[in-house]
């Protein structure tokens, strides 16, 4: 700029905070819509993301279920909150894989070189994945009803259970977003997801009572976040267990994950290349 020009003039193309916030929201929606559109365009993928948890429901209900004794009730009632929690956690695979792919293909570079809200790639991804997860959860609940599962604690707790599952899934997606961007290779990201998600979902109260595990394993299973979240969900769904202790521990864990992984994911996104 020449010195003759008014000094304020360098800013007309620097939008104000209000406009930038509006852009952050609209860019998030545009990208979330795109992500869902891509999901719908690949029917096989659409079907597999739903079939996989349905398969787990049927397998545990009819294959393993007969051999698993749970205190005070039917196994299918015990099982469904566990399956729903696992489904929510596994939704994160898609988050990590999609971000790793976009990174590799240069889509993220293109978007980062544009005057759009930089946060929108992450928020749009998480929004779409959360929506997708919610749809899957509702389908699983319907399948559960078909195989004998019932909510025993009223409508509001049932809704709260779905909300808790979704928030739990979102927090796992956030961890996955970080790993996807940090690792940046879809196959490695997928393998990595299996390595930590399988143990923490299976070594929890999701499928069997923890009291049936050996003592050393109980120590882990009793004190890890998936157990807290699933116990809380089970208490909300069935209503015959005290909820407080598990609820607070769940909230603390989920808040902790958000506090740690939001900055990590954002940092990984900014440095991604």
């Amino acid at each position, binding site marked *: *700029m*020449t010195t003759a020009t008014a000094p304020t*003039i*360098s800013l*007309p*193309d*620097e939008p104000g905070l209000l406009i930038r916030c509006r*852009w952050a929201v*609209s*860019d998030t929606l*545009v*990208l979330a819509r*795109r992500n869902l*559109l*891509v999901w719908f*365009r*690949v029917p096989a993928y659409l079907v597999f993301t739903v079939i996989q948890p349905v398969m787990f429901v049927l397998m545990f209900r009819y294959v393993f279920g007969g051999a698993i004794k749970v205190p005070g009730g039917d196994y299918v009632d015990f099982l469904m909150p566990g399956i729903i929690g696992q489904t929510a956690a596994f939704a994160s695979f898609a988050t990590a894989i999609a971000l790793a792919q976009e990174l590799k*293909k*240069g*889509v993220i*570079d*293109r*978007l*980062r*070189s*544009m*005057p*759009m809200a930089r946060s*929108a790639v992450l928020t749009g991804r998480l929004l779409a994945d959360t929506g997708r997860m919610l749809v899957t959860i509702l389908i699983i609940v319907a399948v559960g009803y078909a195989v004998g599962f019932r909510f025993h604690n009223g409508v509001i707790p049932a809704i709260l259970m779905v909300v808790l599952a979704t928030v739990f899934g979102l927090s796992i997606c956030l961890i996955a977003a970080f790993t996807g961007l940090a690792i*940046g*290779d879809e196959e490695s990201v997928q393998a990595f997801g299996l390595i930590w998600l399988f143990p923490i979902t299976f070594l929890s109260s999701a499928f069997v009572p923890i009291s049936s595990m050996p003592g050393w394993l109980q120590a882990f299973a009793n004190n890890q976040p998936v157990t807290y979240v699933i116990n809380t969900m089970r208490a909300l769904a069935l209503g015959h267990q005290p909820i407080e202790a598990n609820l607070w521990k769940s909230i603390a864990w989920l808040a902790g994950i958000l506090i740690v992984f939001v900055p990590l994911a954002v940092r990984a996104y900014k440095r991604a*290349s």
Partner: protein
Amino acid sequence: MSQDSSGPAILVEGLTKSFGEVQALRGIDLAVPRGTVLGVLGPNGAGKTTAVRILTTLLLPDSGRALVDGRDVVRQAAAVRRSIGLSGQSAAIQEELTGRENLELIGRLYHLSKPESRSRAAQLLEQFDLVDAAGRPAKTYSGGMQRRLDLAASLVGRPQVLFLDEPTTGLDPRSRLGMWDIIRSLVEGGTTLLLTTQYLDEADELADEIVVIDHGLVIAAGTAEELKSRVGGDVLEFTVPDRNRLSDAVTAVAMVGEGEPHADKETGVVSVGVGGRGSDALIDGVRALDAAGVQTHGLALRRPSLDDVFLALTGHAAEEEELNGKRRKSRRSKRDETKATS
């Protein structure tokens, strides 16, 4: 507004960037006047992509300064992003979406209204000859079409300065020529263009000015003609069918040429700059080879290509360097590779 609309579209001073131990850029200076094309020429791993990534605000430099359209790429990154378009080495498009959807999506992310995005997409599909394919998912496109769509996407925001990072790498020769035509017509429209390439003919064909980068340094700059004159006139070239006699051939013509002869062990091609001595050198060359008893074919005198320039400047051919570069890279992690190469 442009801070200084008469200043260069791109100004780079002393730019450096390292990834761990690897010095990708070791102090680069560039100046690209508005409405011109700068060809950044160099082998894989020379630092071309790193430079483009810094200029397009994707990467922070370690030191030095870069202005694009008068704005600092570090301190005014958001403003720079409003002035630029970027098309990288791979087609950064959403393959499941149609060509039209891809362009409309980009339009929406440039905060154009829905009707504006639609008409801009239609315009670009027309311009890039993608109208017939506009309703098909991009994964059904040929490589050339995907690249065209990607280039169209980089133009949605009507950039002042366009960055094309190896726009024809991996394309078949016909698509490559088609891409050249498109790039030429863009430049006629007045867009400033920075184009990186490993192809010497591409830089020769499209660029007003060329800078040659090697190992993170600008080793030469000028027009294609100026660079060719650096070789010092004509080049004597021939092929030795018997690879065992290659070194004899080199010894024979070393006296004839003005510079060091270069022999390619793979192809058996020997080339040597002969300055202005033209046909005299040709005759001397034939006599020397005959005296040494070396059989050759395709012996001829030709105008220097940019390959010769590269050879004269770096002492090695662009392709050889590429191989070495790959070997070098394989020892680094994958992340560093994507960051630091070319």
